[in-house]
């Protein structure tokens, strides 16, 4: 059975873009912003958001720029612009806000908390502490890697989005990548993450999001981002092996040493999509967390 529809939805114009925002709970309640991961969208919170609203929050889940129904991109991940979007959304709502982020969105939540500490009351990070150390190391062959990235960007910019024949085909593709995700969520994310096109469906996510180019971002930079966070942080990671959850226990423990305000809980029976696989545990942990650090 699909989760209920959001209580409200609309668009917010800010930071030179237009964000689709999904909205649950009492509009006068303290705001919580839920931030989805790369290539996902705000409707991934359809299960967790009503539970958080029941705890006494207004819950808002934007489609990040380049995702869902929100504004488009002219270059890759747009990390800084996306963080600015979230900060301005928090200001628009009336800070401080709670931030719940998954994967890329978890990284964004921590980053916003580090840049604008006055806007963020607390952060819940769902398997979003960044890639494993090896992925942040410089490539062996920088020239070959750069040539590949340029060729990839060229393809992305010059071709129309790929058309897929059916929702079933897209569910099958995602199932091959998100091997632990429950079928009803695969179907839900495809239903709300695609739009019709001639010959089938295309993902709403802007393919330009993936047009990455070489940069100096490395493990030291990630640690510096995390060390800037002053707000209380709850980190939830899955206990099961999964794609996109590639850090070893030792690497995860080391990563957490750079987040001095964080407490960590391993959610058994879940992989990368902690909140979709074990929403009961996630809600319980958040309830306990906000009970200790304040609403």
């Amino acid at each position, binding site marked *: 059975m699909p989760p209920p529809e959001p209580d409200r939805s609309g668009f917010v114009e800010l930071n*030179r*873009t237009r964000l689709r925002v999904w909205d649950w709970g009492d509009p006068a309640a303290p705001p919580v912003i839920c931030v989805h991961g790369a290539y996902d969208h705000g409707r991934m919170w359809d299960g967790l958001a009503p539970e958080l609203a029941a705890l006494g929050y207004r819950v808002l889940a934007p489609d990040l720029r380049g995702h869902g129904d929100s504004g488009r991109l002219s270059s890759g991940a747009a990390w800084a*612009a996306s963080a*600015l979007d979230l900060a301005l959304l928090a200001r628009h709502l009336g800070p401080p806000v709670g931030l719940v982020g998954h994967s890329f969105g978890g990284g964004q939540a921590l980053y916003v908390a580090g840049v604008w500490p006055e806007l963020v009351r607390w952060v819940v990070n769902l398997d979003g502490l960044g890639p494993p150390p090896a992925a942040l190391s410089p490539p062996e062959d920088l020239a070959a890697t750069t040539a590949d990235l340029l060729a990839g960007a*060229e393809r992305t910019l010059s071709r129309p989005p790929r058309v897929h024949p059916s929702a079933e085909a897209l569910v099958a593709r995602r199932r091959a990548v998100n091997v632990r995700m429950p079928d009803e969520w695969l179907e839900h994310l495809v239903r709300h993450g695609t739009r019709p096109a001639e010959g089938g469906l295309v993902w709403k996510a802007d393919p330009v999001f993936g047009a990455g180019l070489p940069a100096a971002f490395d493990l030291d930079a990630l640690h*510096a981002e995390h060390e*800037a966070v002053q707000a209380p942080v709850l980190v939830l990671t899955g206990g099961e092996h999964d794609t996109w959850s590639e850090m070893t226990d030792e690497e995860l423990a080391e990563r957490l040493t750079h987040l001095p305000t964080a407490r960590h809980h391993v959610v058994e029976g879940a992989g990368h999509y902690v909140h979709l696989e074990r929403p009961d545990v996630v809600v319980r942990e958040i309830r306990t967390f906000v009970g200790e650090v304040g609403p």
Partner: protein
Amino acid sequence: MTALLVLHDVGDAEGGARWRAALEEAGWPGPVRAPDLPGHGRSPAAVGGSYELADPVLPVLPSVPADDPDPPVVLGVGTNGWCASVLALGGRASALVLVDGLGGPYRPQAEAMAAERLRLRAIADDPAALAPPPVPGDGLDPRLRHGVSPLGSRSMAERSAGATAVPVLLVESPASPVGAEDRAAVAARYPAGAAVVEVDGPEPELVAPAVVAWAARR
């Protein structure tokens, strides 16, 4: 008649026009392409106001195809030296010219990230930077007054230099954010060496004769 592709500096309100004029005046022996990058000169602002370090590579990619038998010399100015370096690394340039373009100031990542936090906070507090951008040709996008975070990692600059296979000219002025010691360390990493020319300022009219003279000697 090798073409020259110029990537002007971030925040250069005139875009590429002054560079094109100066290099043609100095006698560059081929076509000079100096586009106005997004948000500069007569080009529209970047979609959604997103400006990140390597972004200017994307709009010029169609002009430097991978199968070009005579790829251009690519010249990058200031912060956009990194974009020129990326094109050279990726095999899209026959030679690389950097005008105060080695990145910098080089600093530990913690300091670089702190500077980026301040930059983002300044944008968030600047109504002009958040307002709809000016129409193309109506001046510099006010958001670009906050710049973009430069390449701040000396180790990345060194790695990039070590992987750059084409001839390199470094034009350095007193305005360069990279000190002599750092510059020498990075320059030494270019496999074929790097010619270094010092000029009195980064203005196109001062730089162009040095670039043309270097090209003539090659």
